[in-house]
């Protein structure tokens, strides 16, 4: 029987660019098992990789076989993917399974990736939102319910099973090479829609910095909920301009009009349920995380936007 010296780590969402960045950073110090519920991803001979649904019964076999010390849960269906029900099943119920197994098999550290979307975009948002602020998103859009429910679930497990050492990270817009989310698609496009007369302040974090933040979180087992965002801000339309995007204004009032247009066009890069995020700011305060984990983002907004400007037609 071999003795295990390195921590054994389960990382979900292996098909995503962020997971792969985290794996690259941690593979020297940890034995990593990667999973993805959409595809089997080859990550090298030394990293077992599986295509598995968290709700599948065989998922528990992984816990029996590998006896994980920690889990970094980055895999989730984005709001633009599949139906609301499928997303709920995968993101919320799947995470519940993962946390149940984590408890059953005595995992000592769990990191869950959430999103700043949980705060919801509305006119009455103050800037520099703290972690204690109410999560209004579920009341504003049914398509974001799974994001809030996932957080509620994580919070229940955080208090019920403190030995899991759960940390929930709420990053701002993650952007950079390989990122396929809504905002990254917009920044990399030639033309991007904007709501006429509205240019909300936004925050962007480079994928490399986000991966660094996750690694720091892994290294310091402080449980809790943390915003992750650089202390830097730019209006949406200014960001598009710097990225070399031509702005296409859409009628913005009354609010039903842009929503109807977005529904009609069914643009994946400008979904109707995220419309409010292009109208009102959701500026989060990432200083608590930065202080607690000693995190300083290394890539500036200029560097981020330069990448999008010079890669207008990514392969």
């Amino acid at each position, binding site marked *: 029987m071999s003795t295990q010296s390195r921590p054994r780590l389960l990382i979900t969402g292996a098909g995503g660019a962020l997971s792969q960045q985290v794996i690259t950073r941690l593979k020297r110090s940890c034995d990593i098992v990667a999973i993805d519920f959409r595809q089997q991803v080859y990550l090298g001979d030394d990293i077992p990789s599986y295509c598995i649904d968290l709700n599948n019964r065989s998922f528990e076999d992984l816990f029996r076989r590998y006896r994980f010390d920690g889990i970094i849960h980055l895999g989730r269906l984005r709001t633009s993917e599949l139906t609301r029900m499928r997303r709920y099943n995968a993101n919320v119920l799947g995470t519940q399974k993962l946390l149940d197994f984590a408890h059953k098999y005595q995992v000592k550290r769990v990191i869950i990736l959430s999103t700043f979307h949980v705060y919801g975009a509305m*006119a*009455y*948002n*103050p*800037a*520099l*939102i*703290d972690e204690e*602020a109410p999560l209004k998103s579920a009341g504003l859009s049914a398509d974001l319910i799974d994001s809030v429910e996932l957080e509620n679930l994580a919070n229940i497990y955080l208090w019920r099973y403190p030995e899991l050492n759960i940390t929930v990270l709420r990053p701002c817009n993650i952007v950079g090479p390989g990122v396929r989310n809504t905002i990254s698609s917009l920044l990399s496009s030639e033309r991007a829609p904007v*709501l*006429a*007369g*509205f*240019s909300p*302040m936004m925050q962007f974090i480079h994928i490399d910095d986000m991966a660094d933040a996750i690694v720091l979180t892994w290294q310091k087992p402080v449980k809790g909920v943390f915003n992750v965002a650089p*202390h*830097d*801000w*730019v*209006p949406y339309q*200014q960001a598009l*301009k*710097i990225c070399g995007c031509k702005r296409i204004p859409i009628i*913005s*009032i009354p609010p039903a009009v842009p929503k109807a247009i977005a529904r009609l066009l069914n643009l994946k890069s400008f979904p109707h349920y995220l419309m409010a995020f292009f109208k*009102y*700011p959701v*500026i989060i*305060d990432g200083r608590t995380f930065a202080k607690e984990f000693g995190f300083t983002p290394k890539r*500036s*907004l*200029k560097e981020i936007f330069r990448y999008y400007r010079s890669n207008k037609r990514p392969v």
Partner: protein
Amino acid sequence: MSLASFLKSRLVPAELEEQLNRIQKPIGSLGYDPWGFNTDTLKIGFTLTRPVYEKYFRTEASGVEKVPSEGPVLLIANHSGQLPLDGLLIGYALASRPEKPRVPRAMIERFLPTVPWLGNWLNDLGAALGDPVNCAKMLENDEAVIVFPEGVRGSGKLYKDRYQLQRFGSGFMHLAMKYNTPIVPVGVVGCEESIPAIANIKPLAKLLGVPYIPVALPVVFPVKVRLNFGEPMYFDNREASQEELTERVEAVKTEIRKLIEKGLQEREGLF
């Protein structure tokens, strides 16, 4: 060249740019702060406000030097005149004072961020949604913040109610005590008569989702405006009951009332 840069190069005189450059703000790498404040837009706004302040309203600011030159400070003033001209003039008075100018931030009505262009433009100039979290974070940043505790009760009042202070919210006092922030009372005289309203069309206002629709002539009268800044008031941060808090708010209100009286006595006519 962006529109803002073009306008700045055409409109903003060099000495003014230099003066505003001396006022440091905690801004990010692209020139914005979390609320959207942008130095370039401020310079344009400041340049455009100058003739409004000096020529149109012939504003006289007295005691502006009493505003502390650094650290957090709350400028508490009476609100009037349908449009937030009073905030603009107080802001200009402080930013243009010769000794240690400051660019104050203004807390604006909750419906303004929902108005296209205007909401963003006000943010660019340094105004932000009137929310206690916003105000608290700004005070933490050592900002000077303009607050009108009467809110829309003050700005939307009719001509017949001019210079009658409406109910003051107490949020500013909570923040002043919590953040050990001095309060500088400001009495504004003149703005009340700039857009005299005789009625408020409440059903239409409700329909449009705005706080009021005044029945008034579509003109801003060039009345003479007087701004009287009072001595800074300090309140300790010990636990206070609601009654004590109300007393403190009343003390500020009384000072503002005195400053308004002073302004009314000083003026020789509306224009």
